[in-house]
Structures are given as C-alpha cells and as structure tokens.
C-alpha cells in the first residue's frame, strides 16, 4: 500500500493524469466561463492546489474527480469576480471551434452542422452566468441542486428556478433554430 502511495506521488504520474484529463477539465471550465483564459486559469489553480495536497490522493480517479470539481468551483469564482459584466461573452474563436468540431461529426451536412454548432454556443451565451452555471453543472456535470446552490451562494430553491429559466431559454432557442432549419 505504501509503495502504491509513494509511486502515486511521482510527478510523471501527476503529469500523465493532466495529459489524459486536462482537456476535459478545460472544456468543463470553458462551458462555465465562456472564456478560454479564465478556463485555463481555473484549471491551473486546481492543479496547483491538488499538487500541494497530493499526499491525500489514492489514485487517478480520485485525483481526476477532485481536480475537475475544484476547477469548476474556481471557474465559478472567476466568473463571479467578473460580475459587473453580467453577461459573459463566449469568445468568437471558441464559437468557431465548437462549430468546426460539430461539423466534423456529420460531414454530409456540414453547413447545417456548423450552423447548429454556432447556434448552440450562442444559445449558451444568451444565458446569464448563473443560468449557464446551473445548466452546465446540472445537465452536463450531474451536480446535485444543493451543490449548485452552495457554489452559487444561494438557496436550493433559487438554484432550481435558475435551472428552469436556463432550460426554458435553451429550448426556446433550439425550437427557433429547428423552425429556421
């Protein structure tokens, strides 16, 4: 057991988890922040915190889960610090990347897929930061409402209402897109 723990402390193991999971952490934070720089900052903060506490982790899965969660919370904090802007705008290059990635799924309908990719990204953009967080954390990350409420410093009922508003807006946007298409 001791051997297992000490081998886990090796930096190359830590680095390999970063290589393997860094993209997932980054994308999760990007969905929260809509800003690649903030997402990168959030992941770096989580990584360094995890490094300082590396003796406490007993395996890859635990480290991955821990960093993922801390990075998301860091991302939420960074967005909160930016609150005066109210609506965080998704960067154009991020929108473009999403569109390209979406298009790659179905080459035969490239144009429609690209349009959908942009539309989905812009649908998220139209949400307020809190709505976006509530939706991403609940629907994409599977957090409990209590956890979302805690991270947003609000009540469970408020978090629930915020989630409902986000879902209503997103569905309205998707319906509008489908009618256009």
């Amino acid at each position, binding site marked *: 057991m001791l051997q297992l723990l000490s081998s886990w402390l090796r930096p190359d193991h830590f680095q390999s988890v970063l290589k393997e999971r*860094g993209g997932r952490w980054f*994308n999760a934070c990007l969905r929260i922040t809509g800003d690649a720089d903030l997402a990168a*900052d959030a992941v770096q903060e989580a990584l360094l915190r995890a490094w*300082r506490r590396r003796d406490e982790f007993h395996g890859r899965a635990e480290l991955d889960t821990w960093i993922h969660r801390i990075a998301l919370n860091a991302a939420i904090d960074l967005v909160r610090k930016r609150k005066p802007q109210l609506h965080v705008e998704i960067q154009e290059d991020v929108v473009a990347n999403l569109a390209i*990635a979406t298009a790659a799924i179905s080459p035969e309908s490239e144009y429609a897929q690209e349009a959908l990719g942009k539309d989905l*990204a812009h649908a998220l953009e139209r949400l307020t930061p809190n709505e976006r967080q509530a*939706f991403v954390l609940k629907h994409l990350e599977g957090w409990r409402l209590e956890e979302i409420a805690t991270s947003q410093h609000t009540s469970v009922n408020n978090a629930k209402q915020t989630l409902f508003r986000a*879902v209503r807006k*997103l569905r309205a946007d998707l319906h509008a897109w489908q009618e256009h298409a």
Partner: protein
Amino acid sequence: MISDNDLLLYHYGDGLDAEERERIRIALATQPQLTERLRAIVAELDRMRTPEVTVPADVEQRWQRALELANSERPRSRATPRFQWAAAATACIALLAIVIVNMRETSAPSTPTAQTVPPSTAPRNEHGLQWHLASTEQQLAAIGEASDADRARLVQTVLEQNRLFAAAAERAGDERLARALRAFAPILQNLAEPQAADAAPGDLAQLSFELRVMQARLAADSPAASDPRAVTL
C-alpha cells in the same frame, strides 16, 4: 398535470420529494405520451453537449511548467523558515511591482477611449496602486515574526486589498492588470497556511513562472489595451 420542470427533475433524480417522485413514476409507467415528452426534453437538452475543443498548446505547456516548477522547488525548504518568510515577502513585492511596471510600459499610449476614466482621476488611482504596493510590502515584511494566527490575518488583509484592486481593474476594463493581481491570490493564500514556511520557495517559483507567462503574453499582445491608470475603486 405534470410540468416539464417536474419531468426534468424526475430525470435528474433530484429536487423532488418522495411523494412527487412516486406520482411521476406511476404516470410515466401508464402514459406513453408522457414518457415520449420526457425523452424529447432530454434529447433537446443533450444537444447542448457540444463537442470538446482542443486545449491550446501554450495552455498545456503552461500547466505542465507550473507543475514542474512546483515539484522542483518544493523540497528545498526546511533550513531557515524565518529567513524564507522575509525572502518570500520581499520577492512577492518585487515581482508584483515588476508586473505592474511592466504592464504600464507595454500598455497603449495614452489615447483616451470611451472605457477609460478621465485623465484627471488617474493620479488618484495611481496613488491607490502605489499605496497597495507599499501597504502590502509593509504587512508582508512583518510576516516572519508573526504567529500562525497573526500571519493568517495579515495575509487575509492583503488578499482582501488585492481582490479589491483586481475588481477595480476589471471594472475599468483592464483585464490584464486584473489577471496579474489575481495571479497573486493563490500564492498569498498559501502563505497564510501554518506550514507555509516550507512552501515559500515553491510558491516563489510559481510566482516567477506566472510572471514570465504574463510577460510573454504582454509582449505578444498588441498595444491597444486599455490604460492601466484607469483603475478606480
């Protein structure tokens, strides 16, 4: 009548009491159109699972360097904690000053824009930053002599001030200065921990690394950024 919101909460297995869950479960079992409605809602929302974007190479390198530096600097720590405190405090301030001076030098020529504060307010804001630096220096200089509790309190005060200036920079649209100030927060937080004397060299390495990243970014940026003198509290 079961609302879409209730259906969604049922799908999440969250936010409903046992009675509501049971009512929806029975309804879903007996009404195929309700099951179809739930499936359609979830399918719609699943479309928001947009494909992942690739992490930019420079970001990946930055994370790896941060880990490497944290790893390489941490072991040399235990000899003279008090000396390390003083060194950490001095280096923190020196680096903070370098970052801010560097940002001023690489900023735009003082062409007024709609987002900047009128020039008449600039000296006051500059004084504010200078005061922050001087005050931080003073407070951190005493940190080596402080007890754990006092040290935590001192660092907390510095953190609060730093946060205020970062928020002010955000409000003024000076994202670069805000980011520079925010980069100090985790390192300062570390200094507040009781065992932090051991961690100071690693933190300093991290601080140096963040400074280099910032300098590289500043060099790469166009000089069209906002004027850092526009920071207001």
